[in-house]
């Protein structure tokens, strides 16, 4: 089984992992003091993997995504994409940022259509794709609304739709479902997993919800509090396709959740004492 998987891999992939953090460090220079956000991080994400990252808040998880996106340069080490160092905005990734980053002067439809517009897709095809995507994230009928008129959760879904609509090779997601109520979150997790199982994009997904990480990911990386290191790197061997609604009752789910929590909780405790 393993041999077969490796053989299939080498056919379509180069020897490089798609995303690689090669001993990456990030130091923020404050006015009075500098602090180390990330210290000597070495993680590689192979093509097609759904990789979840959990860790205490403020541990520099967003920093990692910004580096993959090429919006931020590491202070030390190199971030590689297909073996090449990331330099400048990486247009092969789609980024669902923590903030919604919508264009407030554009309607929902024109916001979601923006990446397609930038890629020169024709008007009619664009409209079709956008409507389909809005339907998928449960925003059909809100196409003509402006971001200001929507709730925080709805804006978040617009952002998600805007990223999924052009099917980028890599999706970076920074707590995309954090602001949603739990029912809606489950529905959107389900949508995301279905879309992902179809497109097999590479996903780096930051969350503070361990359950979400186990339910969605092929792998969960647990980060420590600042300066960030990897505390645990766990493969999630729950078979796919997964049903988000019932995966939580899988006995492996409970065991993995427990194992991850055991790794994560000292970090959170440590922060509280510090």
């Amino acid at each position: 089984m393993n041999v077969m998987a490796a053989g299939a891999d080498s056919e379509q992939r180069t020897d490089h992992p798609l995303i690689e953090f090669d001993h990456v460090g990030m130091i923020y220079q404050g006015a009075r003091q500098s602090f180390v956000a990330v210290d000597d991080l070495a993680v590689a994400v192979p093509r097609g993997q759904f990789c979840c990252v959990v860790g205490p808040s403020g541990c520099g998880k967003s920093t990692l995504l910004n580096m993959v996106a090429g919006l931020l340069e590491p202070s030390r080490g190199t971030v590689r994409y297909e073996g090449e160092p990331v330099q400048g905005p990486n247009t092969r990734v789609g980024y669902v940022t923590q903030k919604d980053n919508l264009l407030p002067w554009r309607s929902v439809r024109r916001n979601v259509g923006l990446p397609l517009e930038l890629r020169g897709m024709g008007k009619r095809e664009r409209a079709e794709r956008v409507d389909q995507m809005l339907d998928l994230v449960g925003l059909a009928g809100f196409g003509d609304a402006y971001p200001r008129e929507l709730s925080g959760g709805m804006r978040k879904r617009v952002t998600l739709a805007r990223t999924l609509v052009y099917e980028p090779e890599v999706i970076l997601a920074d707590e995309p479902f954090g602001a949603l109520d739990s029912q809606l979150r489950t529905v959107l997790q389900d949508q995301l997993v279905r879309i992902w199982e179809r497109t097999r994009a590479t996903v780096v997904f930051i969350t503070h919800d361990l359950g979400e990480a186990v339910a969605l990911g092929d792998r969960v990386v647990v980060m420590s509090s600042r300066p960030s290191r990897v505390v645990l790197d766990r493969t999630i061997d729950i078979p796919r396709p997964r049903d988000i609604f019932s995966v939580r009752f899988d006995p492996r789910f409970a065991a993995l959740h427990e194992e991850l929590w055991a790794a994560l909780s000292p970090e959170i405790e440590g922060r509280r004492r510090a």
Partner: protein
Amino acid sequence: MSAIAGPMEADAAVPAEALEADGRERRLLSRRYRLVVITTRVLLVAAVLGFWQAGSGTIINPFWVSSPSRIVARLATWIGDGTLWANTVATLTAMALGFTLGSLAGVIVGFTLGRVRFLADVLTPFVIAVNSLPKLALAPLFILWFGIGLQGKVVMTSLVCFFLVFYNTFAGARDTDDELLGVVSLMGAGRRDRLIKVIIPSSATWIFTGLRLAVPYSLVGAVVSEITASSEGLGHLLKTSANTFDTAGSFAAIVVLVVVALVINIAVSKAEGLISRWK
């Protein structure tokens, strides 16, 4: 007690209809309220004018305060002999030219400085220095340089407008969210796309704020130059009237200025409502 319970029960039984009736009642009430407000306003104006008319010549010498009837008579004369029209056109022309030139320059320079960091860093202190100068104090100098005709007024007005629009455009261009620009770059936006699809629209609200401020100030700029020295315009009319101890003429000119300012402000707020629907 039962009198109170009665309608409440009816409310519960037919909520939709009751609500509708309630809404209608409230609308009726608000219409009546508006009517009362407007009537009071009219009465207030009538009282002030009546008091003015009655007091002029009895309590206080009309030489100082003139009277509404004299002002109306003066306006009628001015309308009849074309004075009003010619001077209003002169002021509006100076305003429009000054506003257009000043705002255009303000947008262009503001945008350039806002997006080219080096220029902004070098020039910011000078801009602040010039802006803190009361621009109207430059009117005598401009008249010396450009004469008492249209040119001097236009330069004055455009300078006032320039700074208002420049400042807001500059702030708007700098205010563009870097993270938003980053995310849009990831979607494949080049320099041109970022400018056209993100930076310009995101600065637009700021620019509109500047333009909205600049409109009434363009009237101020034009009228102040006219008062300082000029051959025609509402400011000129006001000044020559005052200089010849003609209070009726002074008040008449002020009335015209108020009307012009009001019309302009209404036009600006209407235009604003049309432009920024998304806000």
